[in-house]
């Protein structure tokens, strides 16, 4: 009996595990809410690009001894604006603009690191994520930025919904559509900034895309998708940290793999839409044919 209790309680005896749990849960909840728009607007590519782009700013801030968060935020926001600017010119398709700019910023980060004489292990924890190295100050900053992002989504819910669903009609109704589209990119950039420390540049996109996509398989309204996505994200963080603790795996990899596993389950068993449900009528008709 006490073995089972130990299994569940053990990880949280250590403060860095508790800090990691709080940070990962906060980040995955915010990412799932913003990620709902990412899924619906087909923005998966750009939501992979912005974390990579933030790495350029993080590396420069590291070299200059400034705030890594601020460096990452400036690089991610600047890249988001530049992508919008370059693709609006109409000379380059937007997916090409994304590809050019984020790799450019990421390579800048690598170039800066290659010139650093002191230890750069800290920087590589941003690439692969190190949820257990999170400080309480990181947690507070994550909570503050996350609260801002969620408040923005709540206050401008109607505007973001209309702009995402039908931009032409939203513009005709007098909504500032380009400003709202930039705002959505800025929300993705801010989510990126709080997610890179815990989950890493490479895996941020999984928190933005996977829980929201899983939720979309199970519910049919946007608020429900956001709420269920947040729950799935939080559950992935908790389960992922247990897996990481007991199996001695990378925490960020475990969190993302848990989210991926939950998606696979939903993809197979989602009521009415999952693979299994779609196969059922065929199985039934097949068996009745055999009976005849």
């Amino acid at each position, binding site marked *: 009996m006490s073995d089972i209790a130990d299994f569940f309680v053990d990880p949280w005896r250590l403060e860095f595990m508790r800090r990691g749990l709080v940070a990962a849960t906060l980040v995955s909840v915010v990412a799932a809410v913003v990620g709902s728009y990412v899924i*619906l607007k087909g923005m998966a590519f750009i939501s992979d690009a912005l974390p990579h782009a933030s790495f350029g700013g993080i590396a420069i801030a590291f070299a200059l001894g400034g705030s890594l968060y601020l460096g990452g935020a400036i690089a991610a926001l600047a890249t988001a604006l530049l992508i919008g600017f370059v693709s609006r010119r109409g000379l380059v398709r937007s997916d090409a603009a994304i590809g050019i700019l984020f790799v450019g910023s990421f390579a800048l980060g690598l170039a800066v690191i290659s010139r650093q004489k002191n230890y750069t292990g800290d920087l590589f924890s941003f690439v692969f994520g190190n949820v257990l190295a999170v400080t309480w100050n990181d947690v507070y900053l994550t909570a503050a930025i996350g609260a801002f992002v969620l408040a923005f989504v709540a*206050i*401008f819910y*109607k*505007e973001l*919904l*209309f702009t*995402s*669903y*039908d931009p*032409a*009609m*939203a*513009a*005709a*109704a*007098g*909504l500032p559509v380009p400003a709202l589209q930039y705002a959505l990119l800025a929300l993705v950039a801010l989510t990126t900034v709080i997610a890179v420390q815990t989950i890493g540049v490479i895996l941020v996109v999984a928190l933005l895309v996977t829980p929201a996509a899983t939720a*979309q398989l199970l*519910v*049919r*309204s*946007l608020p*429900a*998708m956001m709420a269920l996505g947040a729950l799935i994200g939080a559950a992935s963080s908790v389960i992922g940290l247990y897996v990481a603790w007991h199996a001695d795996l990378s925490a960020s990899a475990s969190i993302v793999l848990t989210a991926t596993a939950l998606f696979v389950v939903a993809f197979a068993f989602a009521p009415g839409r999952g693979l299994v449900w779609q196969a059922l009528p065929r199985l039934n008709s097949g068996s009745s044919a055999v009976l005849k």
Partner: protein
Amino acid sequence: MLDHSSHRDCAVDVRDLRAGYNSHVALDGVTFTIERGCLAGLVGPNGSGKSTLLKVMLGLHKPWSGEVLIFGHTERPGHGDVGYTPQSELVDWAFPVSVFDVVLMGRYGKLGLVRRPGRRDRDIAMSALERVRLADRAGRQIGELSGGEQRRALIARALAQEAELLLLDEPLAGLDATAQHDLLRLLEELRTEGKTLFVATHDLSCVAADFDHAVLLNRRVVAFGRPADVFNEEKLSEAFQRHLFVLPQGTTIIGP
């Protein structure tokens, strides 16, 4: 009868409109009027500028020159006089919104930034749904509706906006005969209630049979007026750049 100086009975007054993209001319000297309470058709081949014209009328695309007067004034986004239903293939039917949510969006322009829709907005959206006979579908996800029901839901959104002029982009395309008939009946009912409807369509026979007015467009207005006057062999051939045989019943077949 179509006197430019009297705006009173004029829903749409387009004067010498030139518009396009970069150096491409989409509309070149377009001039026509639509009377209030009319069911008017907008007909022309692909690339004739129909969608550009609708965008200019909505205030979404700035013309190079000329003007569009809607009920006597220049339309600006957010004014709310002009309702619009986009082409079906431009609508994201998989989006997780209910039929009621979509109709309620018709109220968003009037609400302005940040304010939430209230009881009155919900009542207006619900009666718009009742008006298009979709009240029993209010809670469905928008993509679960049939083709004809989807078009009616978009019309309900324009009605919830309390627009007096409705611009409909290809509402009849891709519908089976029954759904097309139901939709035409709805458009006729709305006209009877005093709405002005301007419908872009490829269905010449529907316009010929049921519409009051037709605008035949190919970058410029080839003809406008009563369908019987507009749809003759000479005008249609000019607009579509190929020979069209007009049969006495009003049925048109595009010749080789």
